[in-house]
């Protein structure tokens, strides 16, 4: 395992709108190895979904990945691949679970067809065995009566069931890399645990790598090897999961963690939140993009952009001029 399965370098994505250009992803770099999970957390609108879609080039036409960006999958740059070659990677190499399961499912197509579609197309299976495999897949994601469900349409399923169908479709071709954008947001905790156990199992069995986008820090803590915190399109802190949670260095990360309601607290405990709005990504900024909302911000923070640098000793990196203290 000498090279990472996925290597992302300087990924930058612009979205062109009538009002102007939104830089949704800014110079993001990371490596992901086989069998590993990277968790991506951050406030709504910080660019998590656009990052995921950029990796598989599943962006809308008005989005544009900048030249300097590099995406290397399985040792091969996918920058200049044709649409046909990309399709092959999307089906068998890397699959994605989209954030909104209702919009990724076809509303007028029966569940069964939607699952078999990828099997017929990518694996060139015959109709009959494909349908059998579809039922097995639905069963594996915890759907009790797959033979009935395959004849139903998305609107006849509860939110959680639709999510499970989307997961089954993504797993159909046994991908090497699974990009899961909020895969369990619509699910209750027991089903969430079962599905993540299933994904874990696949990771161990097939060495599948995973990008797990979530706003649930608890989930990231339990399921990811490393966590990247995004803010304003950038990765602002990156570390092994336990380290990041035990000892966040970036004030933004700490503020996010403080906003989580705690089960131990009595009912009606007021919650902390981050004052102010996330940055407007239309406007280029000088300095640290969190500075306007940061209580520790000084002159340097407002004038000079901090780079993502390694902690002097280890694998913990953060982009901050005034990092929180290190607990040794």
């Amino acid at each position, binding site marked *: 395992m000498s090279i990472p399965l996925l290597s992302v370098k300087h990924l930058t994505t612009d979205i062109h709108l009538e009002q102007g250009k939104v830089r949704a992803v800014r110079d993001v770099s990371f490596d992901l190895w086989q069998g590993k999970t990277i968790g991506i957390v951050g*406030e*709504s*609108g910080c660019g998590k979904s656009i990052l995921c879609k950029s990796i598989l080039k599943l962006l809308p036409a008005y989005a544009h990945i900048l030249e300097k960006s590099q995406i290397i999958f399985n040792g091969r740059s996918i920058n200049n691949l044709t649409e046909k070659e990309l399709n092959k990677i999307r089906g068998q190499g890397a699959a994605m679970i989209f*954030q*909104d399961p*209702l*919009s990724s499912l076809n509303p007028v197509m029966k569940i069964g067809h939607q699952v078999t579609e990828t099997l017929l197309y990518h694996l060139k299976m015959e109709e009959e065995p494909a349908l059998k495999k579809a039922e097995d897949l639905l*069963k594996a994601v*915890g*759907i*009790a*009566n797959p033979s*009935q469900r395959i*004849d*139903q349409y998305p609107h006849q399923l*509860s*939110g*959680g069931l639709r*999510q499970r169908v989307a997961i089954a479709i993504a797993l159909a071709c046994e991908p090497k890399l699974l990009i899961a954008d*909020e895969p369990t*947001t*619509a*699910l*209750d*905790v*027991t*089903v*969430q*645990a079962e599905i993540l*156990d299933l994904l*874990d*199992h696949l990771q*161990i069995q097939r060495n599948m790598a995973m990008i797990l986008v979530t*706003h*649930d*820090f*608890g989930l990231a*803590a*339990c*399921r990811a090897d490393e966590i990247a915190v995004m803010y304003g399109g950038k990765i602002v802190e990156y570390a092994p*999961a*336990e380290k990041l949670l035990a000892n966040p260095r970036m004030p933004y990360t700490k*503020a*996010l*963690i403080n*906003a*989580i*309601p*705690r*089960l131990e*607290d*009595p*009912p*009606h*405990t*007021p*919650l*902390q*939140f981050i004052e102010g*709005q996330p940055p407007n990504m239309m406007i280029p900024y000088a300095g640290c993009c969190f500075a306007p909302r940061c209580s520790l911000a000084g002159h340097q923070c407002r004038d000079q952009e901090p780079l993502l640098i390694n902690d002097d000793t280890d694998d913990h990196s953060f982009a901050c001029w005034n990092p929180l203290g290190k607990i040794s």
Partner: protein
Amino acid sequence: MKNKNRPLLELSNIVVEFNADHGEKIHAVSDISFAIFKGETLGLVGESGCGKSSLARAVMQLPGPASGKVTFCSKDLAQLSKKELLKIRPRFQMVFQDSVSALNPKRSVGKTIAMPLKVTGNLSKNERHTLVEKMMSKVGLDSELFNNKPHQFSGGQCQRIQIARALITEPELLICDEPVSSLDVSIQAQIINLLETMRKQYDLTMLFISHDLAVVKNISDRIAVMYLGKLCEIAPSEQLYQSCAHPYTSALFSAIPRVNHPQAFPKLQRCIGELPSPTAPPSGCRFRTRCPKVKEQCVFEEPKLYEISPGHTVACHLFQ
């Protein structure tokens, strides 16, 4: 938590069913009864597909239940004429689970939020506009976005648009179906604080559906737990957390991923078996096929709700 004795909303023996293929029926909600008191927040949790949204829609008369009675402010909603229902509608509102698809894509955000005000119809356009702008800032939306369309917003912002629309008539009852599940933790905290403020200011009563138990515990006075269309436990929040009784509730609490104890959640450890089909729910206790403490009695006899301590009710043979 005042006025504990006067229920604002009372559900009696609610049943919701859907037709499946081959003449079979999906039993989404089977005989559920509970009351919510004025100013109280009742949390509703349970496995996905257990019927939470179906129950919420039945309360909203979208459509009403197949059988059973929904009483709001001492009025049986099924007995009201269309006109009477329209008149009472602004007093109970709902925030839907699928925030993006619950919004009309062609209608601007400002108009969407103003819609319930238009229905009641005694405000001028300017008055409505001012109220909408105020509400937008309350839920953390920039009022400059008044004329934007829903597709120009992220999932979290669509959720706030819905919340603003639901709160604009200052309803007495608000039903929230997963109102914060697509939000990040900071906005989630803001929305919960906002709902809490509304509760204190206007004595807002809420039915709050969520699968995030920490969120539910934070916002609710009492929590009801559902499993496969049935109520299995209901108790004051703190009490449910400290000493839940039903084996399903225990399973729920043990599956919570927690920041502070990741090691308490070992990978590949628990799997409580396959979900039963809602078209043919198990006989006796519906949880028995996955219950670690199942007894023979559970197969034949359906457990009744039984009060094990004041305000704490459980449907499980272990406690009878």
